[in-house]
């Protein structure tokens, strides 16, 4: 394609602009876009710098990551140190390092056997599970909010949490959960995926799955599963203590978490998180609308399936090891978005860290606020998450865009 400017140059700048554009076009007509450095129009560096991502944002992002990582480290150490038996933070660090680093690098002479057990076998797995669940729910929340173009979406919106809960409730009600530690997470996973699959099938038609239908199907299935859960709690053939255990479990908690729970959740969270990081730009584009995303080269339906699956993996993993913990997936991505903007390449990793720090902190509060009594973690996250969320809404009312 040969392009000639039919209009005489009006002035120097338009002339330049036109020549530059022509330049691009001729290069482009070669089809495969051989866009090499020498093709870069001779625009002054300053001009191109003008469209560089704002340096303020980069600095703010670095600061955010630094602050949240520090908070996470502090929360983890405090979470391991504080409890019915207090352990000095220095001891916590030493025990952790001695376990992680090669034998002999860090000496734990002088740390009593019971203290080592408390730190390494009781509190560390609990704190790690909290961090994993927090990160998983926050990532899944960010993904759902992106996919549904709605800042009020949360990981449970497509029925995965409810499905996971039903699986777990079934495991508890049938007594299988009491036999092996792995039954409950397994049932919970299966439940989460069956629920997602059901919602997806209901919402799909002619190879397309409109997110609005997906959302409605999710809401419908969630209430249906909720009814099943309530039935199982109240049914007379379920023993009263089992029913109470179910209720407790539904409220979400991290008591008696062991390394087994860590190993159940860890692979799923790692896989889910990696997948979520691969599809960050696609999620950005989906926010601009599915047609726009498709016109910019996104395989919309495929990305939807992948994102839903990874979110279900993350939600399923967290429901499996911690029960129903609300508000993390809703509030955390929202807070991060207010600080760092909506771009998912920043949002998702920042949400993961923030969610982890938030949940480790919340679990610490749950254990310490009414000592020796323990408050259910789900109550803490809702009690702190909801007011904070309302505060954010009031403060940023104008900035929070709604669909």
């Amino acid at each position, binding site marked *: *394609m040969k*392009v000639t*400017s*039919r*209009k005489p140059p009006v002035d120097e700048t338009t002339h330049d*602009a*036109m020549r*530059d*554009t*022509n330049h*691009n*076009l001729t290069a*482009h*007509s070669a089809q495969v*876009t051989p*866009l*090499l*450095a020498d*093709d*870069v*129009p001779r*625009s002054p560096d300053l*001009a*191109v710098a*003008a*469209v*560089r*991502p*704002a340096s303020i944002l980069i600095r703010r992002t670095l600061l955010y990551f630094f602050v949240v990582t520090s908070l996470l480290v502090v929360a983890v150490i405090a979470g391991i140190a504080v409890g019915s038996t207090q352990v000095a933070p220095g001891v916590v660090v030493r025990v952790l390092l001695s376990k992680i680093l090669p034998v002999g690098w860090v000496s734990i002479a002088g740390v009593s056997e019971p203290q080592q057990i408390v730190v390494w076998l009781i509190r560390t797995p609990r704190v790690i599970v909290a961090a994993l669940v927090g990160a998983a729910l926050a990532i899944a929340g960010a993904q759902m909010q992106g996919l549904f*173009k*709605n*800042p009020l979406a949360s990981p449970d919106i497509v029925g995965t949490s409810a499905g996971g809960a039903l699986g777990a409730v079934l495991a508890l009600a049938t007594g299988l959960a009491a036999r092996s530690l792995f039954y409950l997470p397994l049932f919970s996973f299966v439940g989460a995926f069956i629920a997602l699959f059901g919602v997806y099938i209901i919402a799909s038609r*002619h190879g397309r799955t409109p997110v609005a239908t997906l959302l409605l199907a999710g809401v419908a299935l969630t209430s249906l599963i909720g009814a099943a859960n309530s039935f199982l709690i109240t049914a007379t053939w379920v023993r009263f203590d089992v029913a109470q255990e179910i209720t407790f479990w539904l409220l979400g908690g991290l008591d008696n978490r062991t390394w087994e729970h860590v190993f159940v959740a860890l692979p799923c969270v790692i896989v889910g998180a990696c997948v979520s990081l*691969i599809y960050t*730009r696609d999620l*950005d*584009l989906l*926010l*601009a*609308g599915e*047609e*726009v995303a*498709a*016109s*910019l*080269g*996104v*395989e919309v339906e495929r990305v939807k399936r992948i994102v839903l699956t990874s979110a279900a993996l993350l939600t399923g993993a967290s429901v499996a090891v911690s029960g129903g913990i609300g508000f993390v997936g809703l509030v955390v991505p929202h807070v991060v*978005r207010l600080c760092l*903007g*909506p*771009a998912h390449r920043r949002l998702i990793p920042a949400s993961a860290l923030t969610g982890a720090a938030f949940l480790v902190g919340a679990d610490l509060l749950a254990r310490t606020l009414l000592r020796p009594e323990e408050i259910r973690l789900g109550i803490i996250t809702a009690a702190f998450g909801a007011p904070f969320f309302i505060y954010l809404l009031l403060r940023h009312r104008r*900035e*929070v*865009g*709604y*669909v």
Partner: protein
Amino acid sequence: MKLELHEAGIQIDGCWLVRDATIELAAQSLTALVGPNGSGKTTLMRLLGGLWSASAGDVMLDDKSIRSYKRVDLARRIAFTPQDTHLGFAFTVRDVVGMGRHPHLGRFERESERDRAAIYHAMQRADVLHLAERLVTQLSGGERQRVVIARALATEADALLLDEPVANLDIGHALDILELCRELAREGKTILIALHDLNLAARYADEIVLMSQNRILAAGASAQVLSDDHIARVFGVHTTRTHTPTGETSLHFHRRPPSTQNL
């Protein structure tokens, strides 16, 4: 760049949204797509952009079926801007325009200087450079329209499909957008633009495609396509014409036959 429809149609739930459409978008020109609401304009754009696949006939890009292209390759050739430009999330204008580089970037690739230059020129062309750091949620309708056009330009695609880009704009901003489209066509882009205003279509477009009841009724120069007869059949209105001092023809529309004494 050659983009054409061959007896293309699309059927959903037994209902033809577009039927037997055959057109060839003239390269390096501005084509206006006009027709009443629901006549199939948006669907025709979706067909041409490969966003929906034809249930009959075919869409050809450079003599090859659009089906034989990969999604991302199409995205490098054909850019699309939707009717609804609303974006509920607080991206900066620069980030939104940057999305236009998606088809050129590998999954883990970061923007290169080349990409930044393309973004810069797209923003310059659509006159949104001064908005670079602003949030799209805070823009006016006219500014947002220019931003999505800049995003389409950033793809460096040869064909631009713009779905009613001036539908919600005041006349000044509407003219700005149409002037820009005309210039882009002169610089070599192939542009299809859905319009409601027949006067603007006649004034700016090199060719006009008139749709009625999900079919293409006529295509060609505005004088032939926008005849009194066509307009009466398609829109159900009567047309009178006046000639302006600047030598242009202006169309006026009436639901009932106008009394000639008043003219």
